[in-house]
């Protein structure tokens, strides 16, 4: 593990000096990269670690952003106070949504999660309860204050987003090392074996959803701050497809894989902005090729090496 810590250190050092060498639009891309990585890592708790097919994760991302936006603009609650509310609300939604459908077979779960995403999107579009501002969304979202420092400048928001990413990575790392992570892993490998060892299937699956939803919601709050506005398009299910693809292309339950996946699926297309028309055509073909060449993901996870004596000829 020591070696990987060095690499992560280098990764974050590059992230710290990066905004001083690029123009503002690329600082924005760096901020969004950090936030999307957080969402992808949170999706991975559900998809990679617990092995549940979730293609509606933008819902939770959106719940976070909209909670912050509504509380901040309508009720004048400071952004920092909206964070715990957004996380709690989103986790609650994760529990309510997943509870009745958790026992469904993989593909049904996938379609049901797409369904929840589309229900969420149309609710936003139709200005549900007069809160969401319809197709235009909500403008004029404030900035967070931490210890008297106002996080308002572009660079400040950038560093804040990366701090959130660091915290998320630590959380994921600790989940992997804990009883919780092992429970998820055994559930993914074999539900029957896990249950016979006393892992409560339903509890852990719903917990995975709640954790993933809460983390995605945290990223959503910062996302609302970054653009000072929220609109439904950003949380449509095509966005969920993007997060889903990031995890699978990068490598499920592999932290470096998911960071790489976010880079490949979100940052790389930004280089080809001028080829706007042909870019997604090529991108689709690249997705197929990537999966054929690296079916386990670009940077697959190494988990649980079996001890050597198992393979030794006796």
């Amino acid at each position: 593990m020591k070696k990987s810590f060095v690499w992560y250190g280098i990764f974050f050092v590059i992230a710290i000096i990066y905004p001083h060498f690029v123009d503002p639009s690329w600082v924005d891309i760096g901020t969004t990269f950090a936030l999307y990585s957080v969402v992808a890592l949170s999706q991975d708790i559900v998809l990679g670690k617990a092995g549940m097919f979730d293609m509606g994760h933008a819902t939770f991302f959106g719940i976070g952003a909209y909670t912050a936006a509504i509380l901040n603009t309508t009720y004048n609650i400071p952004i920092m106070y909206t964070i715990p509310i957004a996380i709690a609300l989103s986790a609650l939604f994760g529990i309510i949504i997943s509870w009745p459908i958790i026992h469904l077979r993989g593909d049904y779960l996938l379609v049901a999660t797409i369904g929840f995403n589309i229900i969420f999107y149309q609710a936003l579009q139709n200005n549900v309860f007069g809160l969401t501002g319809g197709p235009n969304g909500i403008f004029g979202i404030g900035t967070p204050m931490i210890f008297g420092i106002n996080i308002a400048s572009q660079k400040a928001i950038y560093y804040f987003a990366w701090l959130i990413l660091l915290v998320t990575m630590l959380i994921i790392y600790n989940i992997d090392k804990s009883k919780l992570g092992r429970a998820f892993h055994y559930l993914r490998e074999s539900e029957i074996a896990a249950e016979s060892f006393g892992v409560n299937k339903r509890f852990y699956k719903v917990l995975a959803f709640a954790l993933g939803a809460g983390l995605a919601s945290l990223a959503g709050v910062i996302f609302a701050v970054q653009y000072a506005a929220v609109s439904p398009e950003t949380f449509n299910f095509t966005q969920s497809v993007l997060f889903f693809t990031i995890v699978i292309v990068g490598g499920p339950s592999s932290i470096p894989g998911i960071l790489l996946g976010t880079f490949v699926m979100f940052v790389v297309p930004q280089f080809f902005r001028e080829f706007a028309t042909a870019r997604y055509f090529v991108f689709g073909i690249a997705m197929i090729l990537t999966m054929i060449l690296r079916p386990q993901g670009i940077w697959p996870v190494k988990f649980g090496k079996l001890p050597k004596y198992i393979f030794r000829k006796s």
Partner: protein
Amino acid sequence: MEIFLQQIVNGLAIGSIYALVAIGYTMVYGVMKLINFAHGDLVALAAYIGLTVLMQAFGMHITNLWAIILMFVVSALFISLFGVLLERLAYRPLRRAPRLSAVVSALGASLAIENGIMLIWGPNIKVFPSNVFPSASWHISGVVINSTQIAILLLSVILMLALYIFINKTKIGAAIRASAIDQDAAKLMGINVNGIIIAIFALGSFLGSIGGLFIGIYYRELYFQMGWIYGLNAFIAAIIGGIGNIPGAMLGGMLLGIFNVLIAGYVSNGWSEALTFVLLIIILIIKPTGILGERVAEKV
């Protein structure tokens, strides 16, 4: 009451289109356990090709009937081939890979086809001519049925009956059913499973292309992202009927068509997709295997 009956008639026309598209999803899922996300985009592609063929045929002053026949034949042939090609290039290399990797490959194929359509035909809405079928309509006790609806219903029913007979009465059909139940056992019985999968993609794409042409004729507006919406609806129809179950796909398509029309008529268009999914989730909670149930092992 008359309005309600009118809605049912419209719903049946739309439903039979859904049913045609849903069969493609359900057959592929039945044998490969894969959601073919690119199927909807093939359906859209069929409509675009059909429009191009039709315009060319009209330009050459071919009679209406022959132009329509030409449109169906060219589009169906091309899309069937394309479906087989898609399986060969995007799915076959991933048959032994994790299932989600195949899903991402399907999503990639969907993205490529969608944007391929945009590159060839442009991002703007294309409009089908209004005079494809003669504009006759019949009044039956206050309910209006036009010739397009009759043609859609008749052709869909004929195609579905033909498919039903093919699946249940022929040797290839038996092989398809066997592969859906247990691929490895089917292989041991000397069934060429690769050939069966090719046949399924060809058949499913063929029916989907007919569905796509009907979408063009009935709705008349084509846009390059339309594959997603119709595809998703058709896939929901397949699940409602019971995935892998061909009569189920037909039933699910009809039900969903009627449901969509009633929602548009009595609630509002802004909520139609959300309510479709609410219906799906309720059905999944009550009966996770769909109305007619998934395919189960049977004596052949």
